[in-house]
């Protein structure tokens, strides 16, 4: 399918490029890559590696937000999954079982959230708030209040190992994003999720299993959170129930919004959410390497969010519409919708 190069130019890519450029100005070695002990090192790799946990959360969060929901519990679910993994590996269980158990914990958490939303009809923000609060308590119960550390090389590999010269989290992030995108776009799932997000009642009348789909997306978000939790635990070689994944749910939501998925549900794009997560991380890393005090980070982040959201706003869309002469479209459809649809087009 041919389409103009223009549709690839999205504000998110411009923002990412600008931030990377700014990082390079502030820290000239930013784009330097070097190869040591069989893996790549460099600030750019750092951005991808450090960004992976939030990006993975954002993948699950995208599906949830597309159904017009939200999942506040993913940070706490990370802690639960990390606690399960650390505790079990400490008890000497084989790695495969440990990973499966941690993932299962995430699935159960997601199932719980999904059931509250789909079966009891709770508002997503409240339904998931329950586990956001309770989750860390559960994680602490599992670790019995300690920071459980471990030395299992297999589990550590998940956080700091490398495959084909790239850190494992990057590989996991890219694989999961590709698989999830394929699962949503090569099947009708993506359309169904969007339909439910746009109008749940009409979707049910059209024969969609709205409840099952809702439970499904929250379960998927829990699964993604568990993966993130395993990576985070493996990275610090221990499960810190109080601090792992703290506030990351907000970063994940931010990543999804930066990626262009509306909190009102409907159209979504998983790859763009990953880009959103990388934008956030590029900022974090940039501030770190350029020697600014870390508290500066929060202000810069806020400023960037404002810029990106203004660029994506309907008003900016209209302005863009008038200054872009080659994009003659019928009056009612806003140009903001064009990129979203064309992304799907290439995947089919």
């Amino acid at each position, binding site marked *: 399918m041919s389409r103009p190069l223009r549709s690839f130019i999205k504000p998110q890519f411009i923002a990412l490029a600008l931030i990377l450029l700014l990082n390079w100005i502030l820290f000239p070695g930013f784009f330097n890559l070097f190869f040591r002990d069989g893996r790549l090192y460099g600030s750019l790799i750092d951005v991808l590696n450090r960004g992976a946990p939030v990006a993975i959360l954002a993948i699950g969060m995208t599906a949830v937000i597309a159904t017009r929901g939200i999942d506040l519990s993913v940070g706490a679910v990370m802690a639960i999954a990390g606690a399960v993994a650390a505790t079990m590996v400490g008890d000497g269980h084989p790695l495969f079982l440990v990973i499966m158990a941690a993932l299962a914990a995430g699935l159960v958490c997601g199932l719980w959230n999904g059931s509250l939303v789909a079966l009891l009809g709770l508002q997503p923000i409240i339904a998931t708030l329950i586990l956001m609060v309770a989750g860390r308590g559960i994680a602490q119960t599992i670790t019995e209040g300690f920071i459980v550390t471990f030395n299992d090389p297999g589990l550590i590999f998940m956080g700091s190992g490398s495959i084909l010269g790239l850190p494992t989290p990057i590989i996991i992030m890219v694989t999961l994003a590709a698989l999830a995108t394929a699962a949503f776009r*090569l*099947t*009708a*799932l993506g*359309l*169904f999720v*969007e*339909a439910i997000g*746009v*109008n749940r*009642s*009409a*979707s*049910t*009348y*059209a*024969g*969609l*299993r709205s409840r099952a789909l809702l439970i499904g997306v929250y379960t998927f978000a829990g699964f993604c959170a568990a993966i993130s939790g395993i990576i985070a635990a493996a990275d610090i070689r221990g499960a810190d129930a109080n601090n792992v994944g703290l506030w990351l749910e907000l970063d994940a939501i931010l990543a999804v919004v930066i990626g262009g998925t509306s909190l009102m549900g*409907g*159209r979504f794009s998983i790859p763009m959410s990953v880009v959103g997560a990388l934008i956030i991380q590029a900022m974090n890393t940039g501030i770190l390497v350029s020697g600014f005090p870390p508290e500066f980070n929060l202000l810069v982040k806020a400023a960037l969010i404002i810029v990106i959201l203004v660029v994506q706003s309907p008003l900016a869309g209209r302005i863009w519409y008038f200054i872009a002469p080659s994009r*003659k479209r*019928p*009056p*009612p*459809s806003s140009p903001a*919708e064009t990129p979203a*649809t064309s992304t799907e*087009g290439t995947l*089919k």
Partner: protein
Amino acid sequence: MPEPVLSAAHIDKSFLDNKVLDDVGIDLMPGEIHALLGENGAGKSTLIKILTGAYTHDAGTILLDGKPVHPRDTKHAQEMGVGTVYQEVNLLPNMTVAENLYIGRQPLKFGLVDNRKMERDARALLSRYQLNVDVGSQLDTYSVAVQQIVAIARAVDISGKVLILDEPTASLDQHEVEVLFGILQRLKADGLAIVFITHFLDQVYEIADRATVLRNGRRVGSRAMADLPRMDLVTMMLGHAIADTHALRIGGGRQPGGLFASFKDYALAGKAAPFDLDLHEGEIVGVAGLLGSGRTEMARLLFGIDRPDSGELTVKGKPCKLREPRDAIALGFGFAPEDRKVDGILGDLTVRENIAIALQARQGWTRPLSQKAQVDLADRFVRALDIRTTGIEQPVKFLSGGNQQKVVLARWLATNPKLLILDEPTRGIDVGAHAEIIRMINSLCDQGMSLLVISSELDEIVAYSSRVLVLRDRAISGELRGAHISVGAIVKMIAMQPEVQDA
């Protein structure tokens, strides 16, 4: 000759390259009811939005009491004297009647809202409309008709020169329409200029003094109703003469085939009294009854949206159960709901996706329709139903109401249904599309589909039904067949005394 209270002339409006109004004008006299007519997409709404300040016009003049005005926004227009009541009543359902009447201009006492005075004023205001409701109750505890009157009372109270009513009767039953018309007559006598937009030509002849007809963004003409024969009016709206749908009787001679679905003793407490319903292949069953007689409740039961307390369903001789709409769809049922915005369309999704969704849902998520299959499907139905859209990738929310209805219809036709349930299929649809939909309904049934149509337009039911069920008080109160079907017979059955009903 009195001066017009509002006079718009040479109004142009374009959305980018798309000219939606071209040299349109309208004159509103004090104390007249002026019908604004035209097919969907003729430019009625755009003109209204310009008069009420929601849009700005590109060219032309608007004179209010002879002075040129430029309404900046709806509030500005209201203050100048132009008030509007929209089809979907735009009040706040979760606030009281009094608050709705005075929101934004509540009487104050010591800087706080003076609730007592507000409710006293509200009662006084509504008594002029002979509306006796508790002004302290939440608005949504009252019917749409009452809400509409509240909206009118508010608009007249604020503005008081021009009142614009956009399809005010669309969701009212016969009695409520009469009440509304009584109010309009009184407002007219008070010297208000009233613009009345509707698709019901009978009502235009009943109440309007003059009519302005728009077609494709141009003014076809303004005429006094007294010397405008019905056929001339329809011809003005369509640009060509059509067969009078009222004279069309296509359902009477229909020969139904074998039994398709049979509902026995179906009942749901508070929603539907036990009823039996047999639906045959190729049969068109019309369901008539006043608003609130249980028409929509019955449709929801038949489609599995609500589960019955009791009752059995057999489809083609096999017992079935409907737990959710999916089950009904699996049996070949389809349902186009009454409120297409809330339950029908997927606004942000494209025309293509809206048409493909039911078929895709039935196929399951693991077997996606290819892009090409979806495009072919959408193209086919856009052409077959004459859906007016700039393309199948246009989000369906930008289509006009009638075209949205056609998209929902296309969604079900794409699944090749065996039983289609249509709840008010022609509501808010213009005359041309109306006839088209009736013709289509007919040809589908020739191919063996059975159809259940709920409609408050009795003419329409009479035109295509081979059998008519009359509902009253949430029960089937009677049935008419073949040559016995007539508007008079239906009305008589609706008005019948409860003792003689055979349920």
